[in-house]
């Protein structure tokens, strides 16, 4: 059988205003057989999206296909006139982008947008298209398929939007579907449902697809073959099964290693060290504080924990669980409504303005996006120098020396001192961001998703740096992440947050040993494993209902009750769950006893870590 897609010797280059060319994609060749799913995998800047777009005969502004050929079903796409490409797009080749939220028009209902390309191409009437769309909605496991199309984009969740845009792509039964990182922006628990839905339609409809991703574990679940890219060059191509179990290329192995950073060694138990940060009975939120002492929109409820000196506390949860709000409260950006934050025995005033300069110095916030955390009009020396002057009174030569030392500490070359953030790479920016926090000589760093925006290899290097700095400087970290494997790699203790409530708390190993809180269970089991067939093995019902609910019938109810697979009807939605101590050393907030959880864990979730 002839392959549907044949790419041979593809070269794509960035062309600047003067006509100078910088190659982005170098001599890439592959083909995709009908009904096959090929995955393109690589880090950002590896050219994966550029290649994917070339299969639509399209090169982004400022880039040009400079050599080779791209054939779809025997037709050469290179040099095809715009009119012919228009006929192709949305009919023969469809594209599922990373951010469905950015791709839907927020002011139109979903259904007209989903069927638009099918109707524009004259493939079906509006009525037929709607009927087919509703069938696809059902196949993609969207709730209420008949009516979901009447909603506006903001009325459905991120995971549902991603399925809706897949329905849009599949509606015309295209010969090739390009998935461009379709689950990257989703929470792990949401990703699993979306992945499963994609996999089912791909299999049932015999869709030929190109799946672009940076995540090997995700790709392993859905692809037949995998093509590994680095710097625009092919590293390795092969059957998914073979490539995952026996990667032949060193680069593939480094990708696999970075995807699952190694856990660090167990360290002395927390009790032996005195607590540095102590948070007790913290309640916080946004908006005016009411007569009952609760803010208008409460986010955090009754949070307590301690961070011993030199230790790392990991805070895990899905988006919207209140992780970042917690960091903002500790930093003083958002005064709490109730509860206290104590640093080294001294209670910190809730608002920033009332904290002393020394208290501010001791707690430093490392923001998630180094892009927006570094002032683009300052040089690195100015960025690092300001806290040195502000807190340490350093000026002139002494300040320059201290800046150089900081750069060395975060393993950046001294030459970046006179550069502005725009000329640094993503990893370098995050290191500079970290160096700025270190300049204050803090005792506690609040790290808010510091590796989430980075590629896995670069992120792993930053994690390693954090660990080294901790042992050199004796720093304590509050490490916020949605990524369980990251938290496992760096943290001594973990706290699982859900809807602003502590669900489980204990030393790091509590995440890898059962019984767990049902929510921890969901989180841990949602992380795709680096092997093919994992998605098929897990319980079909697992993770299906995966949207965070913030409205409860009863204020005393367990926040996790609507999504809990083992909830006790009549009890969990009525009574506040007690905090109980498990024999593995964790505290959990649950009505179920340890023995019940242990018995249920085996039945509710098939795949165990």
């Amino acid at each position, binding site marked *: 059988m002839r392959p549907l897609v044949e790419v041979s010797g593809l070269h794509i280059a960035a062309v600047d205003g003067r006509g100078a060319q910088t190659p982005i994609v170098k001599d890439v060749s592959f083909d995709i057989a009908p009904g096959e799913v090929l995955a393109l995998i690589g880090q950002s800047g590896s050219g994966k999206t550029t290649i994917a777009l070339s299969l639509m005969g399209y090169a982004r502004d400022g880039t040009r296909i400079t050599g080779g050929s791209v054939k779809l079903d025997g037709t050469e796409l290179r040099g095809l006139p715009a009119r012919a490409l228009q006929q192709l797009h949305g009919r023969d080749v469809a594209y599922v982008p990373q951010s469905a939220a950015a791709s839907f028009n927020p002011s139109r209902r979903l259904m007209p947008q989903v069927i638009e390309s099918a109707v524009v191409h004259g493939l079906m009437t509006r009525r037929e298209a709607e009927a087919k769309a509703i069938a696809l909605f059902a196949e993609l496991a969207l709730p209420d398929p008949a009516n979901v199309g009447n909603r506006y984009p903001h009325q459905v969740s991120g995971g549902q939007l991603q399925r809706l845009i897949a329905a849009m792509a599949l509606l015309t039964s295209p010969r090739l579907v390009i998935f461009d990182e379709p689950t990257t922006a989703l929470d792990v628990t949401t990703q699993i449902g979306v992945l499963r839905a994609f996999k089912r339609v791909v299999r049932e409809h015999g869709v030929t697809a190109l799946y672009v991703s940076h995540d090997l574990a995700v790709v392993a679940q859905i692809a037949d073959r995998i093509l590994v890219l680095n710097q625009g060059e092919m590293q390795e191509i092969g059957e998914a099964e073979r490539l995952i179990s026996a990667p032949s290329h060193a680069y593939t192995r480094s990708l696999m290693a970075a995807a699952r950073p190694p856990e660090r060694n167990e360290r002395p138990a927390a009790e032996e060290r005195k607590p540095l940060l102590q948070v007790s009975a913290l309640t916080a939120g946004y908006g005016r504080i009411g007569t009952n002492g609760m803010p208008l929109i409460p986010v955090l409820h009754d949070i307590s924990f301690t961070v011993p000196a030199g230790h790392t506390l990991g805070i895990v949860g899905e988006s919207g669980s209140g992780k970042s709000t917690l960091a903002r409260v500790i930093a003083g950006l958002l005064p709490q409504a109730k509860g206290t934050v104590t640093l080294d025995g001294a209670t910190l005033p809730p608002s920033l303005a009332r904290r002393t300069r020394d208290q501010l110095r001791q707690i430093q916030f490392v923001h998630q996006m180094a892009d*927006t955390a570094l002032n683009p009009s300052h040089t690195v020396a100015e960025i690092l120098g300001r806290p040195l002057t502000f807190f340490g009174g350093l000026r002139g030569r002494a300040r320059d020396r201290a800046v150089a030392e900081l750069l060395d500490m975060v393993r950046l070359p001294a030459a970046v001192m006179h550069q502005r953030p725009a*000329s640094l790479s993503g990893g370098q920016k995050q290191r500079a961001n970290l160096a700025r926090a270190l300049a204050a000589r803090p005792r506690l760093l609040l790290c808010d998703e510091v590796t989430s925006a980075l590629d896995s290899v670069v992120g792993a290097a930053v994690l390693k740096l954090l660990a080294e700095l901790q042992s050199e400087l004796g720093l304590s970290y509050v490490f916020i992440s949605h990524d369980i494997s990251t938290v496992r790699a760096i943290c001594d203790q973990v706290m699982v947050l859900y809807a602003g409530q502590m669900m489980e708390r204990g030393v790091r190993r509590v995440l890898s040993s059962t019984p767990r809180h049902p929510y921890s269970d969901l989180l841990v089991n949602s992380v795709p494993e680096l092997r093919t067939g994992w998605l098929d093995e897990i319980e079909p019902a697992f993770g299906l209902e995966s949207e965070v609910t913030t409205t409860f019938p009863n204020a005393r109810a367990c926040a996790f009750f609507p999504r809990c697979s083992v909830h006790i009807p009549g009890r969990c939605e009525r009574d506040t769950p007690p905090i109980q101590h498990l024999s593995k050393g964790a505290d959990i907030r649950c009505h179920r006893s340890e023995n019940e959880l242990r018995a249920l864990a085996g039945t509710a979730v098939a795949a165990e870590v």
Partner: protein
Amino acid sequence: MSSTVEREPAHVVIKRPRRMPIPLLGWVGIVVVAFWLIMAVFGPMLTPHPAGEVIDPDGFGPMVPGMWLGSDVLGRDVLSRIMAGAQTTVGPAIAATLLAVFIGGTLALAAAAVGGWIDTALSRTMDAVISVPSLLFGLVAVAALGVSVPVLICTAGVIYVPGAFRIWRSLAVNVNAMDYVSVARERGEGMPYIMRREILPNLLGPVLADCGLRFVFAVLLLSSLSFLGLGIQPPDADWGSMVRENLPGLIYGAPAAIFPAAALATLTIGVNLLVDNLPGRER
């Protein structure tokens, strides 16, 4: 813990932002504006004839050697008067623009950085000021305070404060929401530092463009006042008053009626070309 020095992967090269070339029209703007700025400084010294001297007994004379742009209503050399008038036209306008941008910009940065009721109070006050028609405001101010260059500068300055305020504030509010401003607050930095060092440098590109436009408005406003006889007073002349006094020359087809207006046009268009093509606005 290993002590190996882990650096960024070798392939990560340090990118240098490429300097954006200035388009041709930008160069035209630069040349024209530079020409008039030099005229504003040195013009009065370079005039072929003294600006106030009557050399042509008839008035509204044609373009002849020695009087390259003809003579005006009283028979004075138009070229000399335009050269000398550059200073009285450009000078007060620059001063008024700087005044407006300084006051408006400072208030705007304060409004954005402090927020809350200060922002609301400042914004509503500016809305009130901007609701007064500018020429009317100018007429009233000049009528009440009398004509003098400082009064003209202050009047034009006050008129353009709200416009500058609005642009600056809307830009500053966006910058204020960035994490790096939040970082400065976390550090405990004071408002003046945040306004001057964290927010201001990131506004410069668009704000410079705005300054240029505001300068053009000021030139036109001051010229309008002069045209109405309430601006620069004789024997000094700016281009606006030259347009007015030579208006009768239109009937005789005298060049004196056209050239002061043409000078105004080249200056305003030149500034527009310049600010539209400023390189690397976003830094």
